[in-house]
């Protein structure tokens, strides 16, 4: 199993209620597996499913990126800087 720290921001943090959480996932889990686990634990995120990007260690990654133990994962909802 791997353990990753997941950071949440803005509207998704408001929906889930916390800005930081830990997820345990099987070895070799991809970001899409992480999203499935999050959506299943927090179904209130479902409407945002297609608007969320994932960043691992400060870089945007795709669905098939393999996660490693102690990765810092951030769920990035639609950005509105500038």
């Amino acid at each position, binding site marked *: 199993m791997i353990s990753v720290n997941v*950071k949440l*921001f*803005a*509207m998704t943090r*408001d929906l889930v209620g916390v800005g930081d959480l830990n997820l345990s996932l099987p070895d070799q889990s991809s970001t899409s597996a992480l999203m499935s686990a999050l959506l299943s634990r927090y179904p209130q995120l479902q409407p945002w499913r297609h*608007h969320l990007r994932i*960043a691992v260690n*400060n*870089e*945007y990654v795709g669905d098939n990126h393999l996660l490693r133990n102690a990765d810092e994962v*951030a769920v*990035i*909802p*639609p*950005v*509105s*800087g*500038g």
Partner: protein
Amino acid sequence: MIEIINHNIDVACVLKSVEDPSAGGIDVFIGTTRNHAHGRKVLVLEYEAYQPMALHVMNTIAEEARRRWDIRKISIVHRIGRVDIGEASIVIAVSASHRREAFEACRYAIDTLKKEVPIWKKEFFDDGEVWVGPEES
């Protein structure tokens, strides 16, 4: 100068940071809080950032601007926290030998930042507040 701060942006300071004797022009973009959004009166904006990644992305944007255009210097300063109506939330300044490169690089920087940087703004109205959504910015 690539920074995220939580107080008033000193625009003169950002301009100074891109001064260069070989520059023939400086282009500046200042993003300010406007008092309306979708026909509703906005009272104030609040910005939040995933800071380590936001700085990383801002630096990447600056590097890419340098790669694509012959510019001298580029600075990007984003403010987070509460930003009142009329105040600046972002200042981007670019110096170049010639104005065309300065204009293009500055535009590229703000357009890309708005799509990529992990910073979010919340609009406050008389009757509620909302995080700006996917269709807007």
